[in-house]
């Protein structure tokens, strides 16, 4: 199995550029006019979940944060696609 250094060698630059891209995306949202929607709030909530995942892994915490947690099938769907964050 690879060591922590091996993992850093393999993935640090990739993760670094993605992290900066996220920061730039949030700056972009702040800078532009108009109202934001549930996706923005969902994204920020998922970032909190990543930083404070509790006992579980971070990726799972982020995915669960971006999931619909209702239990029963819905009567009807208004859309065929998914947004990536639950509408609240």
């Amino acid at each position: 199995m690879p060591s922590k250094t091996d993992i850093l060698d393999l993935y640090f630059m990739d993760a670094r550029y993605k992290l900066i891209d996220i920061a730039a995306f949030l700056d972009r949202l702040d800078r532009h006019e108009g109202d934001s929607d549930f996706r923005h709030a969902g994204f920020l909530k998922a970032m909190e979940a990543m930083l404070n995942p509790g006992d579980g892994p971070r990726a799972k915490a982020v995915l669960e944060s971006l999931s619909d947690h209702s239990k029963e099938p819905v009567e009807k769907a208004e859309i065929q696609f998914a947004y990536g964050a639950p509408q609240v």
Partner: protein
Amino acid sequence: MQYIEPHAHMVSRTTDDYQAIAQAGCQALCEPAFWAGYDRGSVEGFRDYYRQLTDYEPARAAKFGILHYTWLCINPKEADDVVFGREVLSMIPEFLDQPTVLGIGEIGLNKNTKNEHLILEEHIALAQERDLPILVHTPHLEDKLKGTRLIVDAMKNANVNPDRVIIDHVEEHTAAIALDAGFWAGMTLYPESKCTPGRAIDILETFGTERIWMNSACDWGISDPLAVVKCALEMKKRKHTAELIHKVIYENPKEFLSQCANFKLPQGNE
């Protein structure tokens, strides 16, 4: 390197893609029936699609030395109209005796509606009636967690043998739901959604390499028909052995698919 591509939508791909995956070592590929990017306007549209999957596409793949198999169903995205869904479903048995049909799939849910759920249950009943394995599509993005739970419950309620069901498109939050209930799990490698190669390998390292496969699910959207071999190379970078890589990209799909009466590998690879 030899591998099996267990989930690809080649009707949406070019012959260059067949050439590329053949050169990369693909021995066999499986094409589940799915949404074409638009809702088909008639039952006859599905008949043509099933003919394409069972007649034309195997012949196209054979030109590149690849065995082409298929799974049949009406996908959940077009199954919300129950009357239409049932009309299409009633036609599927006409094609089930074709020599390259593996089972029923990719069935499941899209927006987790009651109507989708009804048609899912009717597909499960058809699979049980014909003693066929099942390939499951789990919903996208925010709908995946709920949909995976509903699908697993539907399978359990119908007393389906989990050995003969693969629940596809699992991610970190749904892999355990499938595997802990005894089902097989599939990971889809997409550039923008589902799993990256790095995350798929994380899932293998976390949940083990039993009852799991990975696929490209390449289709008409942003996807990569070489995703499985690229992930295999990433596994090599992560210091996984050649034996383990071979198990994940060849032996595991072979083990699951060998439960399908029509599945056979090229001579010498059985």
